[in-house]
């Protein structure tokens, strides 16, 4: 008897909302970005688990998570370059420092 797919989903959902929590509470941009990585990984787990345990005929979830990884990498790269840009302008990367535009 292998692990039911729900167990994977519990893990991924937990991870996802940990990521959400991190996004909402962390104070610097890099940490926020890391939270996003957690969320994306949670999604990957979902895909893979579904693929593996529910719909194993095709590699759809598998491929999807592959692309998620690729896109996440690109996204992270751009995000980090933007964060560094912010750092250069504001001299720190605290979320409070990107609070000029509002209302």
């Amino acid at each position, binding site marked *: 008897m292998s692990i039911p*797919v729900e167990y994977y*989903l519990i893990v*991924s959902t937990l991870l*996802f909302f940990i*990521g959400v929590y991190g*996004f909402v509470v962390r104070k610097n*941009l890099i940490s*926020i*970005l890391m939270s*996003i990585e957690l*969320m*994306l990984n*949670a*999604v990957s787990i*979902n*895909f893979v688990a*579904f*693929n593996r345990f*529910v*719909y194993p005929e*095709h590699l*759809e*979830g598998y*491929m*999807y998570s592959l*692309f*998620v990884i690729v*896109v996440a990498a*690109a*996204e992270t790269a*751009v*995000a980090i*370059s*933007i*964060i560094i*840009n*912010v750092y*250069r*302008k*504001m001299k720190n990367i605290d979320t409070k420092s*990107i*609070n*000029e*535009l*509002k*209302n």
Partner: protein
Amino acid sequence: MDYSNFIIMNHELSLVVVLVALLLADLFGKNKRIFQFFAMGLFLVHTVLGFTHWNIGEASAFSGMYVTSEIHVLVKNILNIGTLIVFIFAFYWNENKNKNQVGEFYFLTLSTLLGMYFMVSAEHFLLFYIGLETASIPMATLVAFNKNKKESAEAAAKYILTAAFSSAVMLFGISLMYGACGSLYYGDILIKFQSTPLHIMALIFMFAGIGFKISLVPFHLWTADTYEGAPTSVTAYLSVISKGAAAFALLCIMIKAFANYPGTWQTFLWWIIVITITIGNLFALRQKNMKRFLAFSSISQAGYIMLGVIAGTPQGMAAMVYYVFIYLFTNLAAFGVISAIENKSDKLTMDDYNGLYSTNPKLSFVMMLAMFSLGGIPPFAGFFSKFFIFAAAAEQGQYLLVFIALLNTIISLCYYLWVVKAMFINKSENPIPTFNSDNMTKIGLIICTVAMIILGFISPIYDKIIAISFGM
């Protein structure tokens, strides 16, 4: 493996060719001015070529992953036209304030455009996702293009973070959808989709991601900040092209994948439309910065666009495409004026516009037309698009929604008129001095103005769109 599938992707291929050509030209070309003309000329060719793609008709490639039909071709053409106008307005800015990154500007803009093509044509959530990301991640760098300004960096950071967040949320939805349906082809989902909680939750998570692109409330909060911080040309691009593509993609998804259970999504879409329009309007009321003002106005406009989605009929699709088409000229005209003024005088707040009519009557005139058209005042094109989209919603019996939307147009008219009032009625000690816009801006403004005035009267456009639209 039949790679001839690529052949039917006319738009995408020609755009890729343009992209490659631009990369090369940027690599070897030294003169930025010539490069700009080259880029625009190339893109113009691409745009014109786009109109020859009608004959493809309905076709799908890659075993149903990619689909094209006349309405897709049309939407892509509309996006092309919009992008072209954005380029025209960006010409001066590129030449004077963005000297070092001209090539990148074109390249990045066009790659996001390519992403939008994929979004629009996708029949599979993976392709859709890739398209969406292609349309948003490079956009973040475009937002950060204004190197002199802190706001630009801030806007970009906000944009990329919320974009990543929303794409994560969307992915979570898509993954659950996969789990529930077993396939991510729209056609398969259409068959497998049921009205179970999981399906609906997946749908909503996924919807949120697209809602972010269209900036529907409550997924809209990035909009104003990003619009304000980004270079004006990029803002224009974001507010029209990106939004229009996402809206059309959403409509396609809804029609193709979830048409069997319209009740499930129409219910929440109804509320989202109501709050989107209302919140957008309420915020726009307080704005003094023109770009920020237009950001909120575009949020409420997004709500109107969604009326076509909630209708979900061919009528709704046609009305929505038409709305986007008109909205493109209208909003770009407004941004054109704003960027013309910003380029010459660096003034951006509404108070700076006081007495503009006395010094720059033509610009004020265009701006006024744009405001009236946005407000849906006849005989300008905005009236027609608004009327049709309301008609589409009303056809499905959404009278209450239409009524609420119409009541909201009162608020929106109020702030549009404030702009008009500032330019025409208010007096100013030191109005923006008289200046001559560069020729490119002039051309752009003329195109937009003519379009705003006459498009509504040319009925074949709409009749053509309805003929090629599809729906539930």
